[in-house]
């Protein structure tokens, strides 16, 4: 092998790469937050909703979980404009990520809600808590705590999967890398650096989730 590695051009493009990474982080964080809300709503619909709602949630979850993310992006990015809904690449990417992570998180949150005993809810109501308080403190809070590890690994998986949105030229890290690749032809150098950046980001998200756990949930351990 007489290949000479040249990282110079990759590091010249460092500001662009950082900007791309920042968009990846922002897109992922927004998709996680909105996706979690979607998941909580769907999980409630699935556990306590009327039959048509339960059925709709089932269809949503099964369809998303059994089709590739890439095809979902294409449907949203190329399909929605045909229905008169114009989205730019970044918006389409966010929407696809929310739809995708929402379905996976629904299953996880539902499992969490099912760990809450009926008696807990009755006890909460008997203590004079309002239904919304019972929902927040007795159902959702302990449910999220119980499923926190699976939920956060699903979120990290989402961040990694977001590289696929480069296929519709959203301007996140992978798309920046692709542009750089076509200008400099230093493919291997670029992708090895970008891969390392993703690894750093997944470690960073894991650390952030650990901090959030300590700030939000760990106190309820001590109170016991």
């Amino acid at each position, binding site marked *: *092998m007489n290949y000479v590695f040249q990282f110079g051009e990759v590091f010249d493009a460092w500001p662009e790469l950082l900007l791309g990474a920042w968009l990846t982080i922002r897109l992922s964080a927004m998709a996680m937050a909105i996706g979690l809300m979607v998941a909580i709503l769907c999980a409630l619909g699935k556990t306590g909703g009327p039959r048509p709602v339960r059925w709709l949630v089932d269809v949503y979850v099964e369809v998303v*979980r*059994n089709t*590739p993310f890439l*095809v979902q992006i294409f449907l949203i990015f190329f399909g929605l404009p045909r229905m008169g809904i114009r989205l730019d690449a970044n918006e389409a990417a966010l929407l696809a990520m929310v739809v995708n992570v929402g379905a996976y998180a629904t299953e996880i949150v539902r499992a969490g809600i099912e760990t809450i005993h009926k008696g807990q809810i009755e006890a909460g109501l008997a203590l004079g808590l309002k239904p919304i308080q019972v929902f927040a403190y007795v159902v959702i809070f302990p449910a999220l705590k119980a499923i926190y590890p699976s939920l956060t690994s699903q979120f990290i998986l989402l961040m990694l*999967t977001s590289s696929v949105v*480069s296929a519709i030229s959203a301007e996140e890290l992978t798309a920046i890398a692709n542009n750089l690749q076509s200008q400099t032809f230093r493919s*291997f150098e670029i992708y090895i650096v970008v891969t390392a950046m993703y*690894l750093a980001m997944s470690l960073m998200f894991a650390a952030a989730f650990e901090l959030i756990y300590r700030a939000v949930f760990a106190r309820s351990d001590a109170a016991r």
Partner: protein
Amino acid sequence: MIRQFTSAEFLFLLMAVRWTLLLSAIAFVGGALGGVLVALARTSPYAWLRAVAGTYIQIFQGTPLLMQLFLVFFGATMLGGGIDPLTAAAIGLTLNGAAFLGEIWRGCIQAIPKGQWEASTALGLHYVTRMREIILPQAAKIAVAPTVGFLVLLVKSTSLASIIGFVELTRAGQIVNNATFRPFLVFGIVAAIYFVLCWPLSLYSRHLEKKFGTVSR
């Protein structure tokens, strides 16, 4: 010129499924072979071997599959020899699958109660005999459900091979869409085909989970 979406286009999509299936099959066999090694290394008595396997899993689960495919594809080109997209995708998915299956199977091996290990050691069974006769048969039983679940992930993952230019189902969908400009119809059909492939596997995995869900003593 815009082509109509006719039965010929539909047939083109259906025929592309075989490449999706072929790639899934190659990656599953390759990933399973690698996964056994990773799982055994992860549970081995040697600390350094566990560390090597742990790093391997961390790298492949901590980076995007798309990047891994790019690195195999461009890495092979850099090494001098070109590589066709199918081979690149098969290698990338195999390496990735080995990490995921290795991690799944590690969990299954470690789920076998300690007493089984101690008893087989006390009986004087050698490592190979102990694994082959005592531990792995029990681990295999609980491994079936998550392994089938992984197969669903794998079939969906093969769609990324389209990005490095391998014409499987998703790439075929893009080609047909570029000619017919019927994105909803084309990608709807593509999604439906993936669904038909994956859903039975998902249901089967869930069924197995109920059957073997708990670790038997």
